[in-house]
Structures are given as structure tokens and as C-alpha cells.
């Protein structure tokens, strides 16, 4: 399992896709961003174009990874954990602390997938007090990221497109 983190628009997706370039088939892209409004639609469109021709089957899944069925032996790119966490917390049947639920979902995917690449986001470095709800989100996402990083073979922080390896070896 590889975890890719970094700030906004720093080349995380391109790197994640590149990591799965060596596989020709059985590639799945789990998209967690819900298409709300113009800006997210534009972002989704941009990501679709980025992936076009790379052999990914796109699965839109906003919550509940533990119940998602994918073929065993597949190569999976999950993008992104920050959206998934927000969906689990603030969606229709949102819960306060989805940490265990999300970790279980990832464990489930790991038992099925041959290769799993997760894109997440660094959101706790601006020092702003956003109030209890958003601060709670930053805390939960931070914990999830740390648990994913502990389980991952490779952890990379993307800095303006440069992969800075925090753990393991990056196999490109």
C-alpha cells in the first residue's frame, strides 16, 4: 500500500496514477468526490482527462468502502481520503468519528486488491481555528492519515510535483 499526501494541487494524482502505470489492466479508480456545484464538476472533469487512456475503470463511491466489492487482484487508486472522511462525517448519515469505519474499509480493500494507492491531503498546517466541527474533521483526518502511513509500505509527500519519500521506497 502506498499513501500519497501533500497540500492542494501539488501533483498527488499524477504521481498516484504513475505508480499504477506498470499495470495494463484490472485497474480501478475509486472516486470519492461528490459532484456538487461548478467547481467540483470542473475538478472531476480535469481528473477524468488526466486518467483518460490509462486503463482505469472509475467507481464513484462516496462512503462505505467496507461494503464495496472489487475483483480480487485488482490495482486500486483511491482518491481522496480527505473527501471520503468529509463525506462520512458530514454526509446524510454522517457520524462524528468515522476513523474505525474508514480504517475497516481500507482493510477490506487491501484484502481484495493486489496494489492499493491512496491519495490524501495535508490540511492541518494553517493554524486557523475553524470551530469545533471543522477542527474535529482535521483531527480525524490526521489520525486516519497516521494509521494509513503506519500500515503503508511507502509514504510520499508531494511538493510541487516532487515526491519527497517519508517512508519506504517509491517504485516508479
Amino acid at each position: 500500500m502506498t499513501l500519497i499526501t501533500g497540500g492542494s494541487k501539488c501533483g498527488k494524482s499524477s504521481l498516484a496514477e504513475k505508480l499504477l502505470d506498470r499495470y495494463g489492466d484490472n485497474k480501478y479508480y475509486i472516486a470519492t468526490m461528490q459532484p456538487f456545484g461548478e467547481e467540483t464538476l470542473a475538478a472531476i472533469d480535469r481528473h477524468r482527462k488526466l486518467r483518460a487512456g490509462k486503463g482505469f475503470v472509475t467507481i464513484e463511491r462516496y462512503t462505505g468502502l467496507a461494503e464495496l466489492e472489487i475483483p480480487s487482484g485488482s490495482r486500486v487508486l483511491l482518491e481522496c481520503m480527505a473527501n471520503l472522511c468529509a463525506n462520512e462525517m458530514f454526509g446524510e448519515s454522517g457520524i462524528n468519528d468515522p476513523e474505525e469505519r474508514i480504517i475497516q474499509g481500507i482493510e477490506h480493500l487491501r484484502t481484495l486488491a493486489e496494489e492499493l494507492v491512496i491519495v490524501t491531503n495535508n490540511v492541518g498546517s494553517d493554524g486557523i481555528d475553524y470551530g469545533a466541527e471543522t477542527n474535529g474533521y482535521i483531527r480525524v483526518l490526521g489520525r486516519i492519515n497516521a494509521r494509513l502511513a503506519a500500515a503503508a509500505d511507502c509514504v510520499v509527500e508531494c511538493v510541487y510535483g516532487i515526491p519527497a519519500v517519508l517512508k519506504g521506497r517509491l517504485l516508479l
Partner: protein
Amino acid sequence: MIMITGGAFQGKTEFAKSRYSLKAEDIIDCGSCDLDAVQSARCVRNYELAVKRVMARGEDPLAFTDRLKCDIILMNEIGSGIIPLEKSEREWREMTGRAGCIIASRAGTVYRVCCGIAKIIKGEEI
């Protein structure tokens, strides 16, 4: 002096506890402790909040930082967002950045923690 920095909720405190065999009671939280206890504590966390509270007392946070005798200082990185609209927030951010530079320059070892992974960015393991 050892500095452990990184964004919020990245696992700095957990790392400090396991790496330096600290118990919860060895670590003072600058958000709620007696400010005068910060100076000589073995380990402090959320030092950026000490900066804020020292400023609120009308004192110079950089002079306060110069006097620190702690062994281990945990401090969030807070400077990676948009410049805050509020003047007091801007001043806090600036003073925190400068205080962090003072601590980092005095520290023999500086770690940065991201996703629970600590990387040395200055010096070596003590």
C-alpha cells in the same frame, strides 16, 4: 534542546512519548497550563499557544522564547495558509514563526512529523 514540529494532528505527541519515553504527565500543554511553568518544563506541546498567551499578557514572546529551558518542545506549523484578515491573528502567526526559528536554531535536533512519520530536518538522533 529538541524540537518536534509539523501540522496539527500529525502525531507529534505520540512520537515524542515513544521516542523519549515520556508519560502524559511529563508533557505540559501550553494551551492550558500555568504559563510560568512552561520555561522549565521537560517537555511542552502546542508551544504556538504559549506564544499567543504571552502576547495576550502584553509580553514579548520572543524574549520569552529566548529564556526557554525545556528539553523537548512540540510546536505546530501554522504558517501555510492565507494571511489572516484579523490583525491579532497576523501578529500571532508572525511571532510564532519567529519563535519557531529561535527554537529551531537553538535545538540540536529538529524533527518534522507528517502522517505519524518523524523525519529529522536538523542534527541527529539524541
